[in-house]
């Protein structure tokens, strides 16, 4: 073997100056992972934390994460939403254990330090000591000021019922962050209508978190890996489609309009296509167009770094990416509907949810391919992946035969990571 390239390189090296060949090492290195957390999750970026409809009433809270840090999203008395870090200012305990609930305040059970819904420190037991035999024993120093010991407060932005948070109070506005092009697709779903929560699915995927962003920036695979999409015309290479990417390359939308179902012809002449496939119960794809679609039957939006907004025909959800070290992430699906949905539409959304999630007809295998990619990356980080479909450049397209959105994400990644 030559002495050129070790299997476990110390430095990240790119084969080309662009982002069309991605070193396996971006998925395997723990130091790079920490740098990603710093630069994408804790600084200069907005992170998805949830939907307003999850916490409708004052005092309602949901525990979730930003990056790998536990946070609490809570509805304040005036109806606004606060996001506070779940770390007691005293001894650092992750005090909130319930995942949801309603509370007048938050109390760390260890020493009963209590905090308001804004995260302000309210009470410190024995702050002024304990009086015994006319003498005061112990207590906090005289210069102890509760206001100096609040919970870490995140900056919060909401739009159309979706809640984002940032540890970085100097972050740009959410609207500037998403950018006008992708914001139009965001607003298409979240146009101010009241949302109703249908429920959650949770899975743990043994792969690097970026692979899930890439999965939803990859219009190449659905018509090949997911047989269902092809057979029922839901996502097919000959469908009318567009790929849109923001100016930075970090966010994207894959937009597609359902084509003819059934025989797929030459464009999908692939082994995964099932010519004779029909459903025993056609209600599984009982699709009814909705006015707000304005044409496209599917728009999959990736907001970097941690959320995917799904509209696949009548099924709508957010998918929250929660990293856990370089080689694993939790993937939390929140399916929702709209308050003005008819009972039939709700039933339809729930039925079509069978296509998605950890057991879904067109989603269970996404987790599988991510796991098997990560297996290769870990065993030989000196190698690289190839994303050259549709060229090596980055930009919008009016077709889906391209990996341009993945290239866009890594162009941005290289810039922010300075590698």
């Amino acid at each position: 073997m030559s002495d050129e390239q070790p299997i476990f390189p110390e430095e990240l090296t790119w084969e080309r100056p662009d982002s069309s060949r991605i070193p396996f090492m971006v998925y395997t290195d723990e130091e790079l992972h920490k740098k990603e957390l710093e630069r994408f999750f804790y600084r200069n970026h907005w992170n998805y934390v949830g939907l307003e409809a999850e916490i409708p009433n004052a005092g309602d809270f949901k525990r979730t994460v930003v990056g790998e840090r536990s946070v609490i999203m809570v509805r304040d008395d005036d109806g606004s939403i606060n996001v506070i870090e779940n770390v007691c200012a005293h001894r650092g305990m992750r005090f909130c254990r319930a995942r949801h609930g309603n509370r007048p305040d938050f109390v760390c059970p260890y020493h009963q330090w209590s905090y308001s819904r804004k995260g302000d420190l309210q009470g410190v037991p024995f702050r002024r000591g304990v009086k015994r035999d006319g003498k005061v024993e112990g207590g906090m120093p005289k210069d102890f000021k509760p206001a100096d010991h609040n919970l870490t407060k995140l900056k919060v932005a909401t739009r159309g019922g979706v809640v984002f948070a940032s540890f970085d109070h100097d972050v740009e506005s959410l609207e500037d962050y998403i950018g006008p092009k992708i914001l139009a697709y965001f607003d298409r779903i979240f146009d101010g209508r009241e949302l109703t929560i249908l429920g959650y699915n949770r899975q743990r995927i043994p792969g690097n978190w970026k692979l899930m962003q890439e999965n939803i920036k990859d219009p190449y695979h659905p018509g090949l890996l997911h047989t269902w999409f092809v057979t029922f015309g839901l996502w097919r290479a000959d469908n009318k489609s567009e790929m849109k990417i923001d100016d930075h390359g970090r966010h994207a939308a894959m937009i597609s309009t359902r084509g003819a179902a059934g025989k797929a012809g030459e464009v999908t002449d692939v082994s995964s296509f099932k010519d004779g496939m029909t459903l025993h119960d056609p209600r599984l794809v009982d699709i009814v167009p909705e006015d707000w679609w304005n044409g496209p039957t599917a728009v999959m939006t990736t907001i970097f770094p941690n959320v995917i907004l799904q509209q696949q025909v009548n099924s709508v959800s957010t998918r929250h990416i929660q990293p856990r070290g370089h080689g694993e992430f939790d993937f939390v699906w929140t399916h929702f509907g709209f308050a003005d949905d008819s009972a039939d539409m709700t039933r339809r959304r729930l039925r079509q949810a069978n296509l998605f999630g950890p057991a879904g007809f067109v989603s269970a295998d996404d987790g599988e391919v991510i796991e098997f990619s990560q297996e290769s990356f870990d065993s030989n980080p000196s190698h690289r992946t190839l994303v050259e479909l549709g060229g090596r450049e980055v930009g919008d397209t009016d077709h889906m035969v391209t990996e341009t959105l993945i290239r866009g994400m890594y162009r941005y990644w290289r810039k922010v990571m300075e590698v």
Partner: protein
Amino acid sequence: MEFRDYYALSQLYTEYALAIDSGNWDDWPEFFIDECIYRLQPRENYERGFPLATLAFESKAMLKDRVYGVRETLFHDPYYQRHVVSAPAVRKWQKDRIESEANYAVFRTKLSEPSIVYNVGRYIDVVVRTSEGLKFASRECIYDTEMIPNSIIYPI
């Protein structure tokens, strides 16, 4: 309820588990009547009143569609599964209709890998008497397992 009735119910639970662990997926829908409910739902959604299930089928025909998906369209790592099911507790006994429930644990074994606890929960069932013996009119699998280990392909 006579002992032979309870014995028949107990057999149904055991045969179901053996069938879905055997890899003969076509056997699975045959445990249900045509107009049936099958739901695999996180306990969280069940207890909070959220209707979403991980899988929710409303007919034996849909179960057959799932079998087709398992066998033909869902790419996945091959694995064995093994169900361990408690004796059923009978909640309501009528002549031709039984409401019962049982605890279950499913272990998953992938090739060249040790066995892991895969999915743990409770079956909540409605069983009806048919000319072909006892069948499920409804089987809800309400699972505790907070994080699904990547995916669920085969029936629980």
